[in-house]
C-alpha cells in the first residue's frame, strides 16, 4: 500500500478498543450508518472554498503567496514514522518562515475516522499525512473535488536552489506516483524499497546466503528448516499485503513493469497471464514452509519471532527496521535481499528491486489556508526538511541527496547497496491498491488462501481476474489510467 507507515503493527489493542468504541456507534445492530456519519442535512456544504483565503504577496521566497499570519493546521498520521518529524522539524521550519502564523498540530492513528466527518462538513485542515490502515480514499477525495492539484508545488522554485523547480529535486517517478486522473494530487514523500528482510548476523553465523532463484530458495528453505528455523513467514491476520507485494514483484520481474501498469489499468485477462501464474505458483511452494498458525497472527507477533531468530526471511518494506528499532536485539543486523528469480528467462535480473515513492501527503482543496499547505510541502521537500525527516523517522525521502553524509543504519546501508546493485532495474509501484480498494481487499483474501494452501495458483488467477472484472464493470468506481 502507499501507506507504508501504516503497517499492521500499529494497530494496538488500545487503538482497537477505541475503534470499536467508535464503530459500535455507527454499525450498531440496526441499520448501519446513522447519525455519526450522515450528511449535514440536505443543504449544500458551506462553501468554504468560495471565500478566497487571505493571501500575501508572491515573492521569490514565497512563491505561492502565503498570508504571513494565516493559521495552518497539520494532521499527521502517527504510525511507524512517528510525528516528531513534523513537530520538531517541518513545523518549526514553517514557523521560521512565517513567524506570525500559528501552526496547529494534530496527530492521529485513524485518519479516516478523524477526518471523514470534517470533509463532509467542510471544516478541513490544510495539510494531511494520509496514511495508515485507515487512510482516506484518495481516489474518492479527488473525485469529489476535495484534493488540491499539486502542479503548482512541483513547478515552484526549490528552497535550496531557486533556479530549479521542486520536481527536479526529487527522485525520478516521484511526481508520477502521485497522479490521479493524470494530474498530480499526492506528494509521495518516503522513498521505500521492498524485498525480503533478514538478520545478516544470523545468516553469517549459519553460513547462509540469501537465495537468488526459486530453485535455490527451496534448497535454502530445507536447510533453514533443518536448523529449526522457519525459512519464510508473514502474518496472515493483518499483513497479507506483504505477501502479495512479493507475488506482484516476482510477476513483474518475469514479464516486466508493463504487467503492473496493466494490472492498474484493469487490462482484460491480466491476472491470468503466464507471469502471474508462474509467480503465484512459485510463492505457493514457499508458503508450504510456513507454519499454518501464521495466518492467525498479526504483523508484530510474527515480526517478534524474527527478532528472536526464529524466522529467516520476512517480506516487507524499508520502514521495517525503524519500526522494529526498539525491539531488536543489539547483535541483530537488518539486511534486504531482492525477491529471487523465478525463471531463467526473467525480464529483469535478480538484483531488480521495487523502490518507489510512497506515503502520500495531501492538501485539501477546500482548506482555509491551502497556500500554506503547499508551502509546508515545499518545506518538506527542501534538503533541510528531508534531512530532518530522515533523522527523526529513520526513513529516506524522495529528495535526492538529502541523506548524504548521514550515518546509515545497517538496514538502510543494505538498502542503499541493493539500490546501487539494481541500477536501472527498478520494479515499478502499484496504484490499484489506492485506486480500487475492493480489488485490493480481494487480493488480500486470495493471497492468504494461496499462501496457506487452500487454493492453487490457477484458482488464484481466476479469482483475481473475476475481482478485477467486477471492479472494471462497476460503474460506481471511477476508472483511472496510468501510462508509466
Amino acid at each position, binding site marked *: 500500500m502507499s501507506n507504508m507507515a501504516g503497517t499492521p503493527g500499529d494497530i494496538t489493542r488500545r487503538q482497537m478498543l477505541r475503534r470499536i468504541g467508535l464503530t459500535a456507534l455507527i454499525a450498531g445492530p440496526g441499520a448501519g450508518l446513522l447519525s455519526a456519519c450522515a450528511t449535514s442535512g440536505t443543504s449544500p456544504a458551506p462553501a468554504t472554498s468560495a471565500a478566497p483565503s487571505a493571501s500575501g504577496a508572491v515573492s521569490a521566497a514565497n512563491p505561492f503567496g502565503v498570508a504571513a499570519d494565516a493559521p495552518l493546521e497539520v494532521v499527521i498520521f502517527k504510525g511507524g514514522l512517528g510525528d516528531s518529524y513534523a513537530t520538531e522539524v517541518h513545523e518549526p521550519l514553517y514557523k521560521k518562515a512565517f513567524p506570525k502564523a500559528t501552526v496547529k498540530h494534530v496527530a492521529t492513528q485513524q485518519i479516516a475516522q478523524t477526518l471523514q466527518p470534517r470533509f463532509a462538513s467542510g471544516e478541513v485542515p490544510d495539510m494531511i499525512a494520509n496514511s495508515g490502515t485507515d487512510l482516506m480514499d484518495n481516489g474518492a477525495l479527488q473525485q*469529489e473535488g476535495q484534493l488540491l492539484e499539486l502542479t503548482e508545488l512541483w513547478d515552484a522554485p526549490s528552497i535550496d536552489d531557486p533556479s530549479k523547480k521542486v520536481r527536479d529535486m526529487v527522485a525520478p517517478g516521484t511526481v508520477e506516483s502521485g497522479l490521479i486522473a493524470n494530474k498530480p494530487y499526492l506528494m509521495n514523500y518516503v522513498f521505500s524499497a521492498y524485498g525480503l528482510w533478514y538478520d545478516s548476523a544470523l545468516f553469517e553465523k549459519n553460513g547462509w546466503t540469501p537465495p537468488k532463484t526459486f530453485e535455490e530458495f527451496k534448497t535454502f528453505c530445507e536447510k533453514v528448516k533443518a536448523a529449526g528455523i522457519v525459512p519464510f513467514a508473514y502474518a496472515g491476520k493483518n499483513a497479507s499485503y506483504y505477501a502479495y507485494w512479493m507475488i506482484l514483484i516476482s510477476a513483474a520481474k518475469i514479464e516486466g513493469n508493463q504487467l503492473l501498469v496493466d494490472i492498474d489499468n484493469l487490462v482484460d485477462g491480466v491476472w491470468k497471464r503466464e507471469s502471474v501464474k508462474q509467480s503465484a505458483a512459485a510463492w505457493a511452494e514457499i508458503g508450504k514452509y510456513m507454519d499454518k498458525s501464521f495466518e*492467525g497472527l498479526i504483523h508484530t507477533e510474527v515480526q517478534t519471532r524474527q527478532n528472536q531468530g526464529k524466522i529467516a526471511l520476512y517480506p516487507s518494506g524499508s520502514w521495517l527496521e525503524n519500526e522494529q528499532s526498539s525491539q531488536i536485539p543489539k547483535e541483530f543486523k537488518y539486511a534486504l535481499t531482492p525477491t529471487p528469480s523465478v525463471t531463467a528467462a526473467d525480464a529483469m535480473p535478480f538484483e531488480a528491486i521495487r523502490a518507489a515513492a510512497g506515503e502520500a501527503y495531501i492538501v485539501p482543496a477546500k482548506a482555509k489556508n491551502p497556500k500554506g499547505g503547499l508551502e509546508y510541502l515545499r518545506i518538506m521537500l527542501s534538503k533541510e526538511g528531508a534531512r530532518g525527516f530522515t533523522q527523526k523517522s529513520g526513513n529516506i525521502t524522495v529528495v535526492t541527496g538529502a541523506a548524504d553524509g548521514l550515518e546509515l543504519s545497517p538496514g538502510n546501508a543494505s538498502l542503499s547497496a541493493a539500490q546501487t546493485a539494481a541500477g536501472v532495474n527498478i520494479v515499478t509501484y502499484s496504484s490499484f491498491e489506492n485506486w480500487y480498494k475492493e480489488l485490493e481487499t480481494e487480493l488480500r483474501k486470495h493471497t492468504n488462501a494461496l499462501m*496457506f494452501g487452500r487454493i492453487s495458483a490457477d484458482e488464484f488467477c481466476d479469482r483475481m481476474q473475476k475481482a478485477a472484472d467486477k471492479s472494471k464493470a462497476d460503474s460506481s468506481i471511477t476508472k483511472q489510467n496510468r501510462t508509466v
Partner: protein
Amino acid sequence: MRHGRYPFIIGFLAAPVLLYVVFVVSPYLQAFYISLTDWKGVSANPRFIGLENFSRLLDDEVFWAAVRHHGVLLLAMPLVTIVIALFFSFLLNLGGGQRGGRMTGIGGSQVYRVIFFLPQVLAVAIVGVLFQTIYRPDGSGVINGLLGKIGIEPVGWLIEPGLALWSIIGVVVWQAVGFYVVLFSAGMSSIPSDVFEAAALDGAGRFTLFFKITLPLLWDTMQVAWVYLGIAAFDCFALVQVLSVDRGGPDNSTTVLPMEIWRTAFNFSKFGYASAMGVALFFMTITFAALTLRVTRRERIEF
C-alpha cells in the same frame, strides 16, 4: 387533579421522544435516503441513483456470505445460549430439591451465579482481546497449550474456514449465558413455589419439574430472550473485527453485515452502498423480531 396530569405526562414523554427522534429516527431516515445515492462520504451533495445500490446487493457475493452467517448465528447462537442458561438456572434455583418445604438450588449456587454473570460485565472488546489469546492458533494459545499437554496438535480455531465462525459463536455464547441465567432465575423465582411443592408431593422428579412446570411457565421470558439474542445475532461486529483473520476471513468465512457495512463505508468510500446494506439489515432485524413474536405467541398462563 385530572387536567394537571397531562402536562406532567407530556413533560416526561417529550424529552425522551425528542431525543429518540433526533438520534434514532432521523439518522434512520437519513440512512434510507443515503442508500438511494452514490454518496462517497466526503461531499455534502450526493447524487440520487434510485434503487441501483439494492440491485447491486443482489449479486454481491460477500453480502450473501454475510447474510448466510447471520442465518447460522440466528439458529445456533440463541438456541445454545438458551439451553445452557436454562440448564444452569434450573440447577441454581430448583436443582437442589426441597429443603424445609422450599425449593432450593444446588450447593454454592450463589457463587456460581457470580461466576456465570462475570463475562457479561466485561466489555465486548475486552472479551475479544481475551479470546485472541485463548484461540491463538499456535501452541502458545490457551486452548492449544492445554491440548498440547495431552498430545493434540494445535487447532486453527480462527484460521480454519470451517471452524472460524463456530469459534466466534462460542465466544458470543460464553458471554451471553450469564445474563440469561439471571433472567431465567428471575423468571423462575416468580413462579409460585406451591406449584412445585404440589408437584413434588405428587412424586414429580427434577426432569418432570423442569419440562412440565418450569418450561411452560417461563415461556414469556424465553420469548424475550430469543428476540434479544436474535438481534444480537445481527451484530457480532466487534468480535469479528477483533478476532477474525483479515476482518471477516479466512475466505469470507466469518464476515457479518455490520463488518461489511463498515468496510464498504470506510475502506471503499461507498457510503451510499453501505447504507443500502444497513437498510437491508434493518429490515432483516425487524422481520426477525416480528416473526419471533408472532410464531411464539401462546396463551398466557395466569397464576
